[in-house]
């Protein structure tokens, strides 16, 4: 069997060219992922150092110079209240990044723990948890987020908590799957058979094995959380004035689409690039961690 299987592989998919192509592809991907990481670090630094980098007070209105074009005294122009768009974008970046981090944090906490329980507990508990995640996943995410925010009242914290809850099932499934597969592995069997307590098994074997896919999922979830925050803020259900996130900047600028396109173009570009960076980083990590992930699952 193996004899001819080898023969065929040699015949139909010559290993050398595809291996090389894979290497080239991986390398290129990796460079891209690296660039994404550098970009993200720069964005985080810019947001953290906003007070140092800002050229103006982000909240200072100047009705004498409203809707100024980019250039001159204002790098990215001014908005309808004469506020400096560049400085506002720096501070808004803080809001957007922190909001995304909150949502991811909620999703991880609400995902990992039920995931561990579902994987470890018996069939009944597992079934209940999985049905609940199924139910949660049968709501369109944004509709659910809008409904929750509608009930709880619009605020960024509420919005991000809800987004976190909505993304939690992804982590539940991921962790549960890892636990189920790890439980079957011989080294865990051995470890259990000599009486290692369950929490220790989780710390020693399950979490390390789940780490790579978790990191990948965190990066991809950050991208989605960022988009969700932008969407909710665009709808006026997220960040409330006078604070701004990139999404709410677009919402405000939308009214001046015809006269002041820079009000929507720049914050949108920042959202798009940052989300793209999270996605590319996640994909790059998945590709380079591929083998470990497969071994873990």
């Amino acid at each position: 069997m193996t004899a001819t299987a080898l023969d065929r592989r040699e015949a139909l998919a010559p290993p050398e060219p595809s291996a090389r192509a894979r290497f080239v592809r991986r390398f290129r991907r990796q460079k891209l992922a690296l660039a994404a990481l550098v970009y993200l670090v720069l964005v985080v630094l810019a947001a953290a150092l906003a007070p140092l980098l800002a050229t103006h007070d982000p909240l200072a209105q100047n009705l004498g110079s409203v809707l100024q074009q980019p250039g001159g005294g204002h790098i990215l122009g001014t908005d309808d209240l004469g506020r400096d768009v560049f400085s506002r974008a720096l501070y808004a970046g803080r809001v957007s990044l922190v909001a995304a981090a909150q949502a991811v944090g909620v999703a991880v906490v609400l995902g990992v723990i039920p995931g561990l329980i579902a994987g470890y507990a018996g069939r009944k508990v597992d079934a209940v948890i999985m049905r609940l995640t199924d139910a949660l996943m049968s709501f369109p995410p944004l509709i659910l987020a809008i409904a929750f925010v509608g009930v709880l009242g619009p605020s960024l914290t509420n919005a991000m908590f809800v987004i976190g809850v909505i993304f939690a099932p992804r982590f539940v499934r991921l962790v549960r799957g890892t636990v189920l597969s790890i439980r079957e592995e011989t080294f865990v069997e051995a470890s259990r058979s000599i009486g290692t307590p369950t929490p220790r098994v989780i710390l020693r074997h399950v979490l390390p094995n789940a780490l790579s896919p978790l990191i990948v999922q965190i990066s991809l979830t950050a991208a989605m959380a960022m988009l969700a925050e932008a969407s909710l803020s665009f709808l006026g259900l997220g960040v409330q004035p006078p604070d701004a996130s990139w999404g709410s900047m677009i919402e405000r600028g939308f009214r001046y689409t015809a006269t002041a396109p820079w009000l929507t173009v720049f914050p949108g570009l920042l959202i798009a690039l940052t989300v793209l960076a999270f996605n590319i980083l996640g994909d790059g990590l998945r590709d380079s961690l591929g083998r470990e992930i497969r071994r873990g699952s």
Partner: protein
Amino acid sequence: MTEPLLVVEGLEVEFATDRGWVQVLDGVSFTVDRGETVGLVGESGSGKTVTSLTVLGLLPPESARITAGSIRLDGRELVGLPRRKMEALRGDELSMIFQEPMTSLDPAFRVGDQIAEVVRRHRGGSKRAAWARAVEVLSTVGIPHAERRARSYPHEFSGGMRQRVMIAMALSCEPKLVIADEPTTALDVTIQAQVLDLLRAMRDEFGTAVVFVTHDLGVVADICDRAVVMYAGQVVERAGVDALYEHPRHPYTEALLSAMPQLTARSGRLATIPGSTPPAGAMPAGCRFHPRCGHVVDACRDTAVAEHPLAEGGTSRCLRVSELALKGSA
């Protein structure tokens, strides 16, 4: 005198690698007569599967190329034939049966539809006629209740039955030549025997010539008229099956024979050939088999060996062919 059905002459094939193009077939020549069964024998990496895929024109064009040689089917040159013409021949005049019956049929279509599709591709005609033909060949290859079973999906058949379906598909347009690539390897021993019987019966019924690709000389003895032994991308010996077994003329054939499990003499330990096939692109100088050969002399190490025609018919690619008396399997 007319030419044999299939003539392969001086075939050279290269694969793309990161070190550039590497030769995997070197001057492969053999013939197959009408209605004849020829065994193409060798270990993995010998080039036997590459040879059969080349004959069918199934090598991926972006990573494999034919650099020399000729393949003629019924007098028609296949090397350099435009893709569409080659497609029209495949399944009609020549076809192939693959090793894995479990994965070689499309799981999403009924087996009757898959066979009828091939029939319509080559014969045209109505869907109904093609379906009728599919049922007919299924019943010919020994599928009971063919009318009903044609409406089944591949996963509803056992491995042996699926291999019968594969054979039915390959024979549906009565090709002149069928290449069977290890068609029984993945099957149980009893099913293997049934499939071999079926292939033999089909050859007799349709007059189809068969190239039987295998690493198992036992199967060759069972079903083939002649054998072509390949090693490291070259043909090392060609002979009639009886002559090959009684008097192998190449040390590699001898080694293969001695590695063959003897059903009659179970007591002896199974011999194996030491070493392994050299990878393409890293062929030893001289005779390619010399690092593993028990009869090696100094001359073998540096002189590339040509195929020597033999007085009794056939060829051998051994420098010492005239002086060695090799052991057959009696």
